[in-house]
């Protein structure tokens, strides 16, 4: 019925919370995921970070990033829960599967184009590490122009 999609959930826990509380929160979310037949793909704890601006008089916060595969209802429930919990000062859910798919497609397309062009030039499809330097020659061009500019300044 409901499709499985990949989401990224980031939440910021208040700095007063102990590590135990952060861990508890994590298990709580895990339980919700299990209840909705979702899967927790990855968890990243960034630890304590300075906030760019104050959120409810807090200047710091513990960032936790979770990658979750599940339904929209699951995310809705998590969102509702996180709203209620006071220790979580900010949270954000982003659906990532489509963006990642697009990025992957672009990467594959670029690789295919590169391979096709290289074959047309009579080269092996994959560039060898020693050829990599050739790609940097545009930069050199720019540097030269930059030097000319410097001369004008004088």
């Amino acid at each position, binding site marked *: 019925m409901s499709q499985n999609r990949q989401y990224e959930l*980031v939440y*910021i826990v208040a700095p007063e919370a102990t590590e135990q509380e952060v861990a508890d929160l994590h298990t709580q979310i895990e339980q919700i995921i299990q209840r909705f037949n979702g899967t927790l793909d990855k968890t990243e704890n960034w630890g304590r970070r300075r*906030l*760019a*601006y104050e*959120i409810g008089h807090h200047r710091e*916060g513990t*960032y936790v*990033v979770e990658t979750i595969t599940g339904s929209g209802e699951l995310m809705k429930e998590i969102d509702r829960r996180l709203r209620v919990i006071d220790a979580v000062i*900010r949270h*954000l859910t*982003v659906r990532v599967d489509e*963006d*990642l798919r*697009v*990025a*992957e497609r*672009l*990467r594959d397309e*670029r690789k295919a184009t590169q391979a096709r062009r290289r074959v047309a030039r009579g080269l092996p499809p994959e560039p060898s590490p020693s050829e990599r330097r050739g790609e940097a020659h545009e930069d050199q061009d*720019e540097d030269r*122009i*930059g030097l*000319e*500019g*410097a001369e*004008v*300044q004088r």
Partner: protein
Amino acid sequence: MSDERGGRGGRGAKSADKGKGEGRPRGGFFRRRRVCKFCADKIDYINYKDVRLLTPFIPERGKIQPRRISGTCAKHQRALQTAISRARQLALIPYVTD
């Protein structure tokens, strides 16, 4: 008649001059030809959690740098815009700095 031709020639020369000096305005200050950073570095997905990727596009004031200055292409500027707003919500990047 000849006057007109001369005028036209002048105009032509003028526009040619303009074309030449476009990258180098008066005052001797030269701006490097702008290239979209994301196209050049082949970044397909602008990750909102990657602060180091985003900060070059946020000047001191905290606003998003316009395309005409950063040289980002339209497609990537759009993606950058969403990435920056997400990073702002997560307090990774300020909304404003005074």
